[in-house]
């Protein structure tokens, strides 16, 4: 076995890119960090596309790679790429150190999705979290708020890690091994006969719920998103969160598969709570970042609801939803950033946007419509896909809850459009240049909404069912 197996090339590229970006920060003129980071993220995503159907088991089973892993790795690398592309180079709020930090965190998130070993899983979780804690504190304006965001994130993150670690340790003890995914399947832990197994399930469940910010474990995320700089908030709502969802999926449908009737009702309950809590709380927000934080809570709820209803069959549709969710959420953060300066994320600033900057307003409207789930944007199809899956598994009531929540969410997403198009605003509002990432995200959402087969053809792990 070579030192660096080809299947892990994307992670290798991310690591090299992070080192190179870090090296650039040493120079007085650190302008090189951004292009290096963007190139590395794009290369990593491309490398993944080229080996999309690869199946491998590496390092004596420590790493397992399959179509679903590849789908989630693609989400991680691609959402990193979109984040880097969506926030401007001349953005005074971004310190150059941010780039290597985000890349290291994405590397951890990517490793999280391919771990087949509990120890590697935990190390990856920590690699994802540690740079992100620092990144949340890097805002130059409103440094106090940013620091508060970072501390809250750090404290809950540590608590979540500790809970998760205890759960993983018990799982290892109950199963007699740390390898939880073996080639050709998962190692089931017969927890119905072992109280330790049940306890392990509870701890792992809570730890991951905290990391993924599922209600009622989401309390830290509005404060963290609200205080962290825009790119960090956008990144946090994408790669780390979806990697956590992936880890939860692989654990729950892997070693805990036999305990479906233990975790599914609980997950069902938390999903419904997430949808309602996220959407209703988002209605009341007047700050763009906090609103999107609650919106993320609701969207994770849609995904986990499908997992609770359909189990293993939901993985492909959830991955598809995750990718689209990441693109539209990051796009929304970027469109807000280009309108509302850091530290003034009050939505009032959107007034009159359409008259001032029609293209940017169109981008924002597209993201809002996609987040609501209105065609022809991809957000509609992926939501429809999840609802169809849930109905097919005999839970039309859950589909009604999802539709109802989509209707509730329309009220606050539509408010973005109303502010931008209908309300009149004062003339001179400080605005940053609109980065190219917004246009890329908009076009992608439209393309995936009209021709969803494009993605499933490239990456079989994404599925429409």
């Amino acid at each position: 076995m070579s030192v660096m197996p080809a299947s892990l090339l994307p992670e290798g590229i991310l690591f090299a890119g992070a080192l190179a970006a870090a090296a650039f920060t040493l120079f007085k003129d650190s302008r090189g960090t951004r292009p290096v980071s963007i190139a590395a993220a794009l290369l990593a995503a491309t490398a993944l596309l080229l080996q999309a159907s690869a199946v491998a088991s590496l390092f004596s089973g420590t790493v397992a790679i399959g179509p679903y892993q590849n789908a989630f790795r693609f989400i991680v690398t691609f959402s990193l790429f979109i984040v880097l592309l969506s926030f401007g180079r001349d953005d005074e709020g971004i310190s150059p150190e941010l780039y290597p930090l985000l890349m290291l965190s994405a590397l951890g998130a990517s490793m999280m999705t391919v771990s087949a070993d509990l120890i590697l899983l935990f190390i990856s979780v920590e690699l994802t979290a540690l740079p992100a804690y620092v990144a949340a504190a890097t805002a130059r304006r409103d440094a106090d708020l940013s620091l508060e965001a970072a501390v809250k994130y750090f404290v809950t993150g540590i608590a979540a890690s500790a809970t998760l670690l205890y759960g993983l340790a018990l799982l290892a003890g109950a199963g007699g091994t740390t390898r939880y995914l073996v080639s050709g399947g998962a190692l089931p832990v017969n927890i119905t006969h072992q109280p330790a197994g049940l306890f392990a399930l509870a701890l792992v469940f809570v730890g991951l719920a905290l990391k993924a910010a599922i209600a009622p474990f989401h309390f830290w995320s509005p404060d963290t998103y609200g205080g962290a700089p825009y790119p960090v908030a956008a990144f946090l709502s994408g790669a780390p969160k979806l990697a956590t969802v992936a880890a939860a999926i692989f654990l729950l449908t892997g070693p805990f598969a036999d305990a479906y009737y233990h975790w599914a009702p609980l997950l069902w309950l938390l999903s419904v709570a997430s949808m309602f809590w996220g959407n209703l709380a988002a209605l009341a927000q007047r700050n763009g970042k906090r609103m999107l934080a609650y919106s993320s809570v609701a969207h994770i709820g849609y995904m986990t609801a499908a997992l609770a209803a359909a189990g293993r069959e939901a993985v492909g549709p959830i991955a598809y939803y995750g990718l689209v969710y990441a693109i539209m959420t990051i796009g929304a953060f970027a469109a807000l950033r280009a309108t509302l300066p850091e530290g003034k994320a009050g939505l009032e600033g959107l007034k009159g946007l359409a008259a001032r900057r029609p293209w940017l307003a169109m981008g924002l409207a597209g993201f809002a419509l996609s987040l609501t789930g209105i065609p022809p944007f991809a957000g509609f199809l992926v939501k429809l896909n999840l609802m169809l899956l849930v109905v097919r598994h005999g839970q039309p009531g859950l589909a009604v809850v999802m539709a109802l929540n989509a209707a509730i969410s329309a009220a606050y997403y539509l408010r973005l459009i109303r502010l931008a198009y209908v309300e009149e605003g004062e003339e001179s509002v400080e605005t940053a240049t609109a980065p190219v990432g917004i246009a890329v995200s908009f076009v992608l959402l439209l393309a995936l909404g009209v021709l969803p087969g494009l993605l499933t053809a490239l990456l079989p792990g994404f599925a429409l069912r």
Partner: protein
Amino acid sequence: MNGFPLLSLTVFLPLVALPFLAASARARDGMAKWIALVTASLTLICSALAVWFGRGAGFHFLEESAWLSSIGAHYRLGLDALSLPLFFLTALLTLVAVFASWREERQPAGFFALLLILECGLLGVFSALDLILFFVFWESVLIPLYLLIAIWGGERRRYAALKTFIFTASGSALALIGFLFLRWQAGPQAFDMTAGATRALPLALQIPAFLLIAVGMAVKVPVFPLHTWLPDAHVEAPTAVSVMLAGVLLKMGTYGLLRMAFTGLPAAFRYFQPAIIVLAVLNVLYGSLAAYAQKDLKRMVAYASIGSMGLVLLGASSGNGLATGAALMHNFNHGLYSALLFLSVGMIYERYHTRMRDELGGIAASRPLLGGLFVLAALFALGMPASAVFVSESGVIIGTLGAHPAAAAAAAAGLLITAAYLLRASRRAVFGGASEAVAAAGDVPEPRWHERAASYPLVFLLFLLGIAPGLAAVILSPATASLLSALLDKAAGQ
């Protein structure tokens, strides 16, 4: 016409104008209306071709390609007798709307772009033959409509636009659940609107699906008591949008009911027939009485639409061949005469700055064409003989009389009230001595060339179909047959 994607071409033709409109927004605002005019005219020509080649029973111009094959949804377009008239009506009224907003000065490029996006969505709704594709088009109508009302509307435009959006979005969410339910129960064929896989479902499964879909569609019709968004939307909307709203958007609701609830779930339709007839009569009476009480002419016309849609529902669910055919024709006619009414009210408002019936008066004396158009539109709306509306209204009443005499009598009473308020409005607003507002307005122009271009085709068609109703019967009779077979259980009896 085999193999040529006429429908795809027609549906997406309006979108071709968008880049040109975007360019005109930067260069010259005056270009926008011409771009819209050319596009809407080409689309109308295409849809007229569809009418010419698409007569007769069955689906025409079928197009099908794989789209979301994994969930069973296809890109499938086609027209039959039920959708063909509405497809043509959409293209016609879009052109009328372009003429009606010829003098739009506020961001005309944006206005016409949204109008054309709206047309694309509407054409898609009427030609889609896959439930998911239908839903995609249905939802894509919502956003342009919201923006058109919220940006170019009247004083309370934001409230009206949001109310419209929330009502229709909630309705369509229900309908979507109904579609998913059908997919779950009837298998992968359920999304195919040509296959009829849902017709064989047992009654117990048809009822929940019917309720979900019918309520979703009823919001759009609108069926009393889900109608409250309509008067607000109409009053605040600019004239062109009112034309589209009354003329075509309400037809999305009746079309959806006829296509999916009535012919798609016939057993449930039979089960709910008495309830639908009661609701239809309530709609006629409520719409007429509410219209009678209005002093604002535009609000009056809005409530009149609720009554007319009730008449369509009554005829379509009566189980009588004459009434059913007449209801389908009335559905089309209403698109023409309500557009004409809104146009003339819009012209009056633009000139005299009031729509209050009692503040107007004496228009005919000084501006005979302007006043005459309103009176003519009112005469059409109350079913003047020799007009198409006379044929359709009397057809519905006579046809219903045999099986449901009480319903027919109540609906006829509603028509009497309609005649009363329309004649009263004409007498007070148009005839008599010049009122203060009319006198103060001074030298206002008669309808301009583009206003005449918007209204004359409607007048022509209403007379043409009134004198030669056989033209409508040729096109509509296959649709009548399919509706009747759903209700009379001919298919099941064979």
